């Protein structure tokens, strides 16, 4: 059969209805008002970052009549040297995708490329900032969940629980995003340690260890399992996870089973507590469903316009997955009185009464970053240059 016209790199002949182009090499024509593609960097069942996106995509399928999903997992050169975002996108477009979400900042560059290649397809790069900086073509937007607040809550839960006053943070690789998330967690922890437990925040030890990538690559990154083990051995009793996967809570569960008093706060995915519920203090998670649904809607009826969205929580109900973009769900491991204090904290943040990003905040090297009494701007938070004073661990 001759190569289909729309697989040759030329944009698909989108007719006025905006319906997807017919493509014979996909075997069956794409049904429904919208075919959309989601590209994952990790496995779709990693109980972390990638699975959260997979569930978000599923949410669209469940709530948008006839929406048709093309999912592609594990797109990273380590797992698939032969695969490229462009190749995957080509195929998705060939199958009629008119909306494509690339769900990692790994894809930021390449997404720009394909966005230029397919001007009639809408692209969303998660956690990128090209739409903010204006480099992006008109058909490329960014979304990120405002996880900072949830991380602050998570940090608070950790601080309310720790017996040894030592919290360990399992960091992925070092960049702006990971720094600011770790920092938010620390600020939340410091606030609650001081205000609810009445202890001196200077005594709170908050250690960050970076494994070297978003998830474990054997022989190349530090093995998160061993980092977590080492955390507990060194006296840390609460591990917060900042990586895509669940080693943190896995090890904690193991230790608890062996009788140690340890807890963990996983990350990314609502269901992340399941590995070891009893010692899970709760999980700050991304709830992509609502944002994805909104996107899909707007693309389907042609009303989408480029934007850089930093979607926050529904403070009224942090676990309402139809409305909130990021969530916090407390785990069975959180004690009743800790829960009480945590509720106060959450209420405070909801009302704006509490903003952990209020100065004085110094960088790790001691230099002042946020002046006393001032609240940090979005840019200041987004582009945090170092870890903060009081946090242990490398900034670069």
């Amino acid at each position, binding site marked *: 059969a001759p190569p289909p016209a729309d697989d040759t790199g030329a944009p698909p002949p989108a007719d006025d209805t905006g319906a997807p182009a017919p493509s014979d090499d996909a075997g069956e024509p794409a049904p429904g008002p919208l075919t959309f593609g989601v590209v994952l960097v990790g496995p779709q069942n*990693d109980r972390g970052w990638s699975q959260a996106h997979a569930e978000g995509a599923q949410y669209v399928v469940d709530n948008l009549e006839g929406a048709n999903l093309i999912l592609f997992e594990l797109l990273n050169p380590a797992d698939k040297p032969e695969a490229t975002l462009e190749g995957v996108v080509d195929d998705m477009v060939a199958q009629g995708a008119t909306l494509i979400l690339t769900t990692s900042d790994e894809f930021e560059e390449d997404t720009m490329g394909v966005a230029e290649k397919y001007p009639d397809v809408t692209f969303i790069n998660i956690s990128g900032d090209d739409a903010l900086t204006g480099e992006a073509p008109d058909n490329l937007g960014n979304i990120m969940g405002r996880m900072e607040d949830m991380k602050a809550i998570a940090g608070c839960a950790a601080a309310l629980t720790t017996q040894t006053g030592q919290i360990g943070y399992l960091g992925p690789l070092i960049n702006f995003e990971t720094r600011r998330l770790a920092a938010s967690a620390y600020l939340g922890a410091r606030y609650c340690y001081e205000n609810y437990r009445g202890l001196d925040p200077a005594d709170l030890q908050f250690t960050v260890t970076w494994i*070297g990538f978003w998830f474990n690559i054997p022989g190349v990154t530090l093995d998160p399992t*061993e980092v977590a083990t*080492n955390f507990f051995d060194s006296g840390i009793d609460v591990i917060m996870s900042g990586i895509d996967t669940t080693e943190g809570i896995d090890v904690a569960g*193991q230790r608890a089973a062996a009788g140690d008093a340890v807890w963990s706060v996983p990350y990314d995915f609502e269901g992340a507590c399941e*590995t070891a519920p009893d010692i899970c203090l709760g999980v700050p998670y991304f709830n992509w469903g609502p944002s994805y649904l909104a996107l899909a809607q707007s693309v389907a009826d042609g009303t989408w316009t480029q934007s850089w969205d930093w979607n926050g929580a529904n403070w009224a109900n942090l676990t309402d997955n139809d409305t909130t973009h990021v969530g916090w769900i407390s785990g069975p491991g959180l004690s009743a009185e800790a829960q009480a204090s945590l509720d106060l904290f959450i209420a405070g943040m909801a009302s704006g009464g509490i903003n952990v990003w209020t100065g004085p905040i110094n960088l790790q090297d001691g230099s002042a970053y946020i002046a006393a009494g001032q609240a940090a701007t979005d840019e200041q938070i987004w582009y945090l240059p170092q870890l903060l004073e009081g946090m242990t661990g*490398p900034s670069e």
Partner: protein
Amino acid sequence: MNDTLLVRILASIALQAAPLMIAVTGETLTERAGVVNLSLDGKMLMAAMTGFVVAYTTGSLILGFLAAALVGALFALIVAFGSITLKHNQVAIGFVLTLLGADLSAFLGQNFTRLPGPSVGKFAVPYLKDLPVLGPIFFNQNAIFYFAILLVAAAWWWLFRTQPGLHLRGAGERPEAAFARGASVTRLRYLYTVLGGALVGVAGASYSLGIKIGWSEGHTAGLGWIALAIVIFGGWSPARGALGAVVFGATKSLATVFQQNVQGVSVVAFNTLPWLLMIGVLLLVSSDWVARVANLLPPRLRGGFLRLVQVTPPRALGVEFGQE
């Protein structure tokens, strides 16, 4: 005393090293019989996956370990058949199986990724566990650790203190001579290749069911190669191999510790430690620089020093046996 940072870390290192000890012992037995089974890495992945999947679905740890051992033995059987019966290059077959094992485990395990599953619990030995320092390190671990220690001891005894052990070593040193003494070399090599494979299988399951609980793609990747290197470092002796496993475990946790305590070095740098260690120890045991150093020593010490440091592989390692 027993709850100091050092003791806790040592205990963890010992536990982390347990599966490696098992794998190293398995491969040591195989290579002592004259067969190189290079497929360790792939075998371990397959076993880790199988062990978890079976234990998860049946809820029985025992079945999990058995299944893993079976898979390990099966892979080993392929190597044995290919190299002993079909007289093909052992390294080639082992290498292909390594890559195949990685892909196959990823594929077959895809629906069991990161599920919370059963795991081997801790078992403290009464009284002994309270011994100063030794207690927490040796007697407050999980069954896998105890198994590893016993296995290493048993393997050492078998190799160096029994008639079958002599046959086994003979088959790897000089098969034609072993044959002349009534050993059936082919059968021995099959036996110990498969047994070694089964043990490596157990090692793989030990990760997914005890040390790095659960399954994920590439769960144990790289560790098989490490084990192969340790076999050499261990001079094909289970005891020394166990030591090697511990040394390796120690270095890995050092990498973690360093990140907190060494400033001004890129975080990434510390991940190089295990690999530098691998090259380092192999240089130590096999390069003839050591021999030259030895020549500086007084003759009395020379022999002992070399015996301590240097190792020589079984002479017929990887050499096919044509009978007569």
